[in-house]
């Protein structure tokens, strides 16, 4: 078309970004890449091709990492870790700062390469991915700088194995590497097989940034390479971002071997539009929610929930907006929607939509004849029971339904196994701030969507994984408490004596479920003997049905999680008061149970009273934070209860171990199913009398007794339990971590190591007893 013709048609023309520099860089590596291990490139060996999904052209040959390559990378990381971890924080800050600067200086090269390899529009790579990468390294340069003064009690984990997805290749690399190396860890990172190139370019700049050899190692390859990392015995921590399916397998594979684990998995995030919202802005928000990065975004607002009265208007306007989206060459600067990452992904999306009911609307946009393109699609009229309302599509497909009331919006929003992100649109601040805490999600955006920043934690609940990336909370995933622990020996109960010393009056200890004393479902009990052969009583032997009943009671006590911190504080103080009033009796019980001296037993009771006061004190002092994100608005990091926690109390400290779990769980608003010390259960059953007299609402605290090893799979496998802790001297860690994979509940287990119960370890317990939800609230009138 010539100028006069265009003058009439006013069409957009091509606006291609140059690919020359990116191709030059690939050519500079002769189109073949090895791994980056110990600060040097390995010889390219067995390789696979990486392609541009927009054209199908081969961009380069990428090495398929073998077990040996992973071994070499881990060895290099191990070798480098000690020195790196011991360097002053300022030294590490300099390296991270240099990485941030060099990413900025090479920003266009990174952006073009990312677009070529992944298919995402150059605008997104240029304006979103790469600036966020630089931001992440800047932010964590600061964390390295502040580590000694602000995190004096935390130490690096060691060598971290990191496996990242193909949707935000370099950004996910930054999210993984920056906090890890800032805290003094070294890493072995595997980029996704479809999108290795920017990680390899990053390896190039590591050398310019003065990253010491071995601190950052990049091993490329497919799932087999990832498995080699997951299973490697000398890796201390696995961080994975990817599908829930693979995340579950990693959880199982790492169960019981003492590797730290964080998982950032899939989602089916709700996008709620109330009838008073700015509809046009909410529609534009959907462009950023589900047509950003072709919908290949774990936190994509993919489930549209519109208030019924405005639904038709909203859909009409939404379809009109969809028709204006421009799909095509990702390197065109005038393109909204690029190519999906691979023909395999294209087929997955196509098949899922083909099998769907509802009214399917495809944007009336031109679709390139070749390449992996799928048009922006809206499916309305679905119900929560439809497959596409539940399953992640990971493509530019939005599914929608309507709701009547705010309560119904919340119910529909939370009707999912996932819990990554949620978006809500309303002009009513009362409604927004009421709904945000009710949504089961790690991130909530109010009147916005897909906002990210290094200062604001990101991560999910439920089957969207656990752990946070970004912010202070993200550093917990790359550090551990300083100090050494010892192996914890299994404590057996005192055996039945030859001659029983029966009590004058039989005493009955039951289970404590839903605020009531309950006989065990199985009808079995175990005699509890003292060291001197005194029969102290019988402890009920709880079974799976008792676990079920206790969890049901805990689930039903949801009001506890919504009550005020002030009220929770009062009740936990009251537990302390009532325990204190019975110090002598509890001390006697402890002496009988454990054979402790009078002084030691009294000390444990006193410590337990103190511990309850400590947690009562914390109840209203675990402040949420407001994050200084780079926009006009706040990102609130809100501490929320985890939900229903199952816990195996310490065997060795039957009272102090119990209240050390009860205190933080209740103070932070959780409901608890706690299994008492297995050899010494009767302190816990006495304690329920304290609970009964302390106004603990029914179901908030449930106490079971019985064999830990039998109850662990039941509690850890229960789909309605949100977290399981174990301080048992039985070897439960592997069982709990493996069984937790079912609903990917959070776990905190001792891996057979002891704990000093004289220390409240408030930081650790606060972290375990809360989920941090990031609520983004942009503002301005």
């Amino acid at each position, binding site marked *: 078309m010539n*100028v006069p013709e*265009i003058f009439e048609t006013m069409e957009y023309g091509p606006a291609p970004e140059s690919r020359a520099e990116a191709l030059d860089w690939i050519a500079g590596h002769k189109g073949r890449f090895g791994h980056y291990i110990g600060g040097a490139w390995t010889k390219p060996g067995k390789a696979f091709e990486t392609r541009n999904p927009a054209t199908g052209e081969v961009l380069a040959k990428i090495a398929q990492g073998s077990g040996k390559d992973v071994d070499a990378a881990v060895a290099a990381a191990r070798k480098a870790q000690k020195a790196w971890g011991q360097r002053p924080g300022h030294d590490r800050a300099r390296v991270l700062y240099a990485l941030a600067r060099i990413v900025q200086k090479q920003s266009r090269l990174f952006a073009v390469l990312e677009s070529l390899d992944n298919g995402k529009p150059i605008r997104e790579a240029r304006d979103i991915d790469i600036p966020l990468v630089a931001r992440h390294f800047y932010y964590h340069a600061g964390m390295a700088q502040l580590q000694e003064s602000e995190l004096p009690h935390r130490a690096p984990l060691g060598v971290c194995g990191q496996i990242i997805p193909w949707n935000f290749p370099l950004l996910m690399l930054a999210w993984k590497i920056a906090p890890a190396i800032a805290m003094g860890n070294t890493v072995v990172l595997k980029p996704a097989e479809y999108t290795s190139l920017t990680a390899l370019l990053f390896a190039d700049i590591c050398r310019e940034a003065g990253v010491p050899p071995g601190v950052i190692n990049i091993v490329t390859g497919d799932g087999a390479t990832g498995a080699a990392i997951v299973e490697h015995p000398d890796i201390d921590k696995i961080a994975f971002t990817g599908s829930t399916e693979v995340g579950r397998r990693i959880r199982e594979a790492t169960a019981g071997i003492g590797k730290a684990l964080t998982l950032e998995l899939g989602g089916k995030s709700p996008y709620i539009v109330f009838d008073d919202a700015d509809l046009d802005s909410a529609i534009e928000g959907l462009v950023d929610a589900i047509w950003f990065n072709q919908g290949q975004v774990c936190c994509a607002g993919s489930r549209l929930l519109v208030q019924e009265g405005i639904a038709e208007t909203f859909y009409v306007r939404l379809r009109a907006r969809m028709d204006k989206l421009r799909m095509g060459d990702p390197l065109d600067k005038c393109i909204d929607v690029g190519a999906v990452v691979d023909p395999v992904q294209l087929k997955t999306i196509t098949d899922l939509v083909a099998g769907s009911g509802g009214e399917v609307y495809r944007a009336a946009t031109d679709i390139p004849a070749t390449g992996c393109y799928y048009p922006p699609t809206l499916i309305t009229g679905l119900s929560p029971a439809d497959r596409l309302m539940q399953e992640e599509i990971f493509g530019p497909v939005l599914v929608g339904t309507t709701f009547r009331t705010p309560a119904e919006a919340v119910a529909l929003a939370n009707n999912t196994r996932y819990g990554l992100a949620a978006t809500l649109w309303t002009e009513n601040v009362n409604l927004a701030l009421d709904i945000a805490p009710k949504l089961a999600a790690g991130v909530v955006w109010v009147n916005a969507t897909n906002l990210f920043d290094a200062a604001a934690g990101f991560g999910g609940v439920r089957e969207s994984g656990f752990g946070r990336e970004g912010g202070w909370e993200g550093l917990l995933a790359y550090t551990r408490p300083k100090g050494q622990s010892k192996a914890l020996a299994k404590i057996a109960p005192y055996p039945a004596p030859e001659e029983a010393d029966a009590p004058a009056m039989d005493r009955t200890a039951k289970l404590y479920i839903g605020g009531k004393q309950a006989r065990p479902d199985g009808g079995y009990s175990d005699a509890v003997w003292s060291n001197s052969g005194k029969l102290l009583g019988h402890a009920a032997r709880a079974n799976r049905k008792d676990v079920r009943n206790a969890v049901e009671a805990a689930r039903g006590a949801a009001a506890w999680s919504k009550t005020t911190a002030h009220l929770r504080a009062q009740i936990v103080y009251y537990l302390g008061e009532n325990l204190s009033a019975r110090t002598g009796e509890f001390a006697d019980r402890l002496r009988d149970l454990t054979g402790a001296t009078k002084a030691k037993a009294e000390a444990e009771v006193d410590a337990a009273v103190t511990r309850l006061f400590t947690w009562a004190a914390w109840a209203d002092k675990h402040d949420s934070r407001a994050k200084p994100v780079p926009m006009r608005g706040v990102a609130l990091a809100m501490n929320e209860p985890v939900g229903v926690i199952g816990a195996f109390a310490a065997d060795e400290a039957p009272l102090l171990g119990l209240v050390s779990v009860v205190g933080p769980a209740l103070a932070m608003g959780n409901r608890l199913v706690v299994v008492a010390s297995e050899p010494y259960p009767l302190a816990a059953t006495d304690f329920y009398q304290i609970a009964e007299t302390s106004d603990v609402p029914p179901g908030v605290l449930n106490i079971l007794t019985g064999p830990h090893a039998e109850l662990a799979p039941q509690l850890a496998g229960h789909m309605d339990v949100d977290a399981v802790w174990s301080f048992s001297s039985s070897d439960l860690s592997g069982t709990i971590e493996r069984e937790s994979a079912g609903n990917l509940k959070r776990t905190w287990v001792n891996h057979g190591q002891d704990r000093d119960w004289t220390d409240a370890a408030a930081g650790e317990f606060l972290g375990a007893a809360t989920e941090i939800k990031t609520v983004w609230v942009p503002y301005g009138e």
Partner: protein
Amino acid sequence: MQNPVAAVPSETDTLSKSAAGRTLPLVQEQRNEPMPLDLDWVRAAAANTSAIERRAATLPGRRSVKKDHQAAWLLRAITLIDLTTLSGDDTEGRVKRLCAKALNPVRKDLLDALGMGPITTGAVCVYHDMVPTAVAAVAGRLPVAAVSTGFPAGLSPFHLRLAEIEESVKAGAKEIDIVISRRHVLTGNWQALYDEMLAFRATCGEAHVKAILATGELGALRNVVRASLVCMMAGADFIKTSTGKESVNATLPVSLVMIRAIRAYHEATGIRVGYKPAGGISRAKDALTYLAMMKDELGDRWLKPDLFRFGASSLLGDIERQLEHHVTGRYSASYRHGMA
């Protein structure tokens, strides 16, 4: 290219035929007749500032128009300019010069190189006293727009504001740019705003009326969307951002709010109302962003002078330099182009 706003110019039709080298179907827009004030609609209208600002901020990065397309778009932008002089020191000589530039905005050698026939700006825009001079100077080849109703503050006696419209229409102005009473918006007196606009519209008669909202003085985008709706309900043919005299004039966020109001009005009534951002648009790149925004948010129909104008004075100079750059491959200088 037709020009129904001015409701004149067979000349313009001829002009654009030659410019384009082919004819376009003549689209005669139905004029926006007033409808009853719908306060439910007005009060329910929302504008989320931060979301609108984010959309506005990403617009320039989302759309890029290059090479021949850029040249063509910039030529189109010229045909949408209300070339404006609104100064206390305006004289007949100054206004004649402006009109001459409006009729001949781009050097002929540049147009030739681009394969374009002659083009003009969309209109000229002057104060009432300059209307006769301008009407004579453009000789029917362009509409003359007059700012009116006590421009820019709009605080002269109401009957005088109406009289000013009458006088300008009588003097030959085909378009009247009225200013609304900001106080009606700031006090939420939508009925008063509606009544005022209705009176202005009636007084304009056949002349088309552009309602200047003075958005920089309305305090909130929520007020902008509500004032936009009220003015359209009262029969505004165009809604316009600003007088150019406020401290903040046309911005992308304000424009988004106003054109989304236009879109909603079109959805509800089937009537297309025009949009005129004024003040602060001085770079060719800005003009391209505005055009892309109109195209994406409202559609191609709003890329024509009967539905879209730039109120600008220095924009043309920058576009001329860009066009010369396009033709020669070398950056241009302002003195190489005739001044207004």
